[in-house]
């Protein structure tokens, strides 16, 4: 596995410096368990509506939490190679669904890709939006166990993450299912998943609890916007999917660090860096340097008010998105930060001394991350078209140009995967702090 590089740099002169020292953040990254995904991993996401679509099946905006997770992995570890496949099917249960029985689904859509990692989230449809019922639960439990045993016997080496299903929103809207609501049922399913996964030694991710807590906090602040986190109670919006992605990434020990830079003229050495390289530091009235981060920030669209609310009600940013800049010993009251000649913001001396998180700002690095995210979704979209609209739709028809179309779409998907990797490669940026 690759870990953010925390030891780069060399001394380069009294006023132009290139240093690398592990920061506190980087030390923490080292002491926590390594990121669960490894170079060369093939990851298949398996599940139902929640994994397959965003709120309302808009073909341009589906497969969201898996796309966030994929983008995180590619932008945080740009030198590792991952292959992600989303094989979730809206409406599915542990027994399968419109795409076939569970055995067909697993064989064609999971095992055929020879994954090294499989995530499974099911339950939302299995509970039938009804109060807890023993027969339904038993059917779910034995179906889930069947999935695990099928994966175990066909993919003995695969690392499976069992996911406790995401919530049915009974926080921003009144419960509409008798006997204590539907999320209670989902949590009971989740408890079973937890126990089973523990017994089998699988990774467990809880995609329910955090989002419920976020809904509660958000409702206290802004109930109207909070309701848009899971507009139809079932399918989260982009903001809700960010929290789902966070939960899965946390279960995978995803590091928070994008990069960290601390400039402190009162200490020796006066530059500390984490997961980045700083060159050509010039300190005069203004400060300037060239910084090449080994990772990109998370593509969080802070302009979306629902996302903004979710960010303020969760630890998404501290847990996953730390791209810090700290400057000590400045003399002027206020400084303008420019990156590649674009004004990013104006900050007080105190703010800079405390440290600012660049990940929340509209920087060239953030734009680069959004570009990666767009390409990730484009690649997933092509894969989806090949899978659902060709491979599956005309599975029973032998047509002269079918194989050609399947091959051409696969080649196109490979093109886009290459583009994704290129787009995620670290780039140097010129930073400038100008006194105001």
């Amino acid at each position, binding site marked *: 596995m690759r870990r953010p590089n925390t030891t780069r740099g060399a001394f380069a002169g009294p006023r132009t410096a290139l240093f690398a020292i592990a920061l506190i953040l980087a030390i923490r990254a080292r002491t926590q368990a390594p990121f669960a995904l490894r170079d060369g991993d093939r990851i298949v996401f398996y599940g139902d509506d929640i994994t397959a679509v965003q709120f309302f099946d808009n073909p*341009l905006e589906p497969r969201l939490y898996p796309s966030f997770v994929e983008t995180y992995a590619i932008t945080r570890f740009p030198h590792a190679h991952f292959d992600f496949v989303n094989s979730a099917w809206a409406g599915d249960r542990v027994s399968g669904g419109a795409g076939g029985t569970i055995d067909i689904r697993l064989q064609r859509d999971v095992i055929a890709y020879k994954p090294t990692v499989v995530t499974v989230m099911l339950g939302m449809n299995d509970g039938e939006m009804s109060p807890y019922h023993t027969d339904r639960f038993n059917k779910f439990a034995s179906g889930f166990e069947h999935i695990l045993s099928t994966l175990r016997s066909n993919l003995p080496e695969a690392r499976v993450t069992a996911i406790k299903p995401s919530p049915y929103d009974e926080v921003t809207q009144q419960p509409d299912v008798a006997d204590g609501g539907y999320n209670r049922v989902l949590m009971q399913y989740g408890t079973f998943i937890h126990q089973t996964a523990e017994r089998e030694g699988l990774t467990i991710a809880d995609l329910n609890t955090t989002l419920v807590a976020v809904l509660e906090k958000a409702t206290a602040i802004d109930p109207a916007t909070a309701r848009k986190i899971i507009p139809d109670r079932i399918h989260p919006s982009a903001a809700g999917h960010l929290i789902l992605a966070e939960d899965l990434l946390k279960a995978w020990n995803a590091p928070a660090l994008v990069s960290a830079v601390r400039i402190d003229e009162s200490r020796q050495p006066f530059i500390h860096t984490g997961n980045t390289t700083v060159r050509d530091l010039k300190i005069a009235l203004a400060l300037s340097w060239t910084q090449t981060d080994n990772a990109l920030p998370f593509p969080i669209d802070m302009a979306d008010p629902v996302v903004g609310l979710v960010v303020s009600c969760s630890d998404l940013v501290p847990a996953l998105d730390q791209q810090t800049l700290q400057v000590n010993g400045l003399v002027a009251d206020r400084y303008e930060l420019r990156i590649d000649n674009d004004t990013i913001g104006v900050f007080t001396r105190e703010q800079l001394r405390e440290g600012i998180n660049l990940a929340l700002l509209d920087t060239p690095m953030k734009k680069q991350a959004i570009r990666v995210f767009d390409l990730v979704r484009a690649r997933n979209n*092509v894969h989806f078209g090949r899978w659902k609209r060709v491979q599956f739709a*005309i599975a029973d028809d032998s047509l002269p140009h079918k194989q050609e*179309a399947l091959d051409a779409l696969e080649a*196109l998907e490979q*093109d*886009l995967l290459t583009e994704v990797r290129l787009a995620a490669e670290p780039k140097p940026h010129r930073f400038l702090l100008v006194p105001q």
Partner: protein
Amino acid sequence: MRARTKSIQLSGTVACVARAVFYAMLCMAGCAHAQSVFDLRDGDRVIFYGDSITEPRMYTNFVETYAVTRFPALRFEFRDSAWGGDRVTGGRGGSIDVRLQRDVLAYRPSVVAIMLGINDGWGLPYDPKLYNRFCSGYEHIIKLLTDALPGLRVTVMRPSPYDEVTRPQAFAGGGYNGVLVRYGEFVKRLGEREGLTVADLNAPLVSVLVAAEALDHALARRIAGDGTHPGIAGHLVLAAALLRAWHAPALVSSVEIDAAGTRVARTTNANISALTADQSIGWTETDDALPFPIDFGDPAIALVVRCSDIVDALDLQLLKVTGLKFPRYMLSIDGQPVEIFDRGQLDEGVNLAVFDTPMSRQAANVHALTSKRNEVQFGRWRQVESALQSDSPAHKKAALDALDELERDLLDRQHAAALPRPHHFELKPQ
């Protein structure tokens, strides 16, 4: 018995058969000749344009299958260029000018059918500002299309309803469907002023919902889907409404046999050979068309059939046999039993379109191919063409071309699957 109607209440079947008898008599009298000509012509390229009502390829697929199965000798090309969320100004797929250029004009259609409005009203009470924006946007669309393609036949569709029959009104003062009806009035006036075809996709579904609600609330709700997007049964009503505006003939075929005289008394849209009449009556029949692929086994569709004249208006495959000696006969087609009829029923005429026959199975197969072709076309458009509009990966063109070829394969297969086939009919006394 293998009636397709087995899961509907018997009364539904009887009602269908009874109505079919009435139409059988009408049509035997030559109503097929009195009908005007179907609006679609050989070689037509038809594009559906609209929002999330049109995007899921449901009513549009019904219309396509109807055309392909009713006129198997003709060639049509259909394309669904609707995009969920769209308004007269465009939407996620681009501004209206980008949308019309890339998704309509680029295909040089001969027919364009447009339905918009449900998003233009924003789900709000009538607002003159929104209404005026809708009107001027709609006028812009018509002008742009007709300027670019002189000779284009445009059908404007009054937007399908927001369900306030099985659900409470969205707000007082006529509800949201009241707003849509008002938008529809404009669409109608515009269509008449510009000499376009006007189809009403609102009132027919509302009246089906009213009738269905009186019979079965839960099923009526299924017809209405989520209130904005009708379920498949609702889409059948939408398809019928558009086909009606296009003067779609009701007749699949009509055959009248005189068993006593061992002679074919009359045929329309069918060919009869090898007629024998002894105790049993047998013949070989090749219809020029297939029945409409209505899945009578779906209870919501069965309810729509009961609450509308869809079968009478679109799906008459009539058989009348006179001069029979025995009181009851089993009809078999290609050796498979279809239904047992009374002599009286056969004497008045029965509608085979509502039964499970080799012809209805053939039509269902064509419809499956319609869906498949549209899936491939939609995937090409949404997952490749428009999704990668600003990217030029090396294999984009190859993928687009391969998908075009694949779609062509499916179009050929669909056309071949719709071609008339001879079937052996037998009436055996019971």
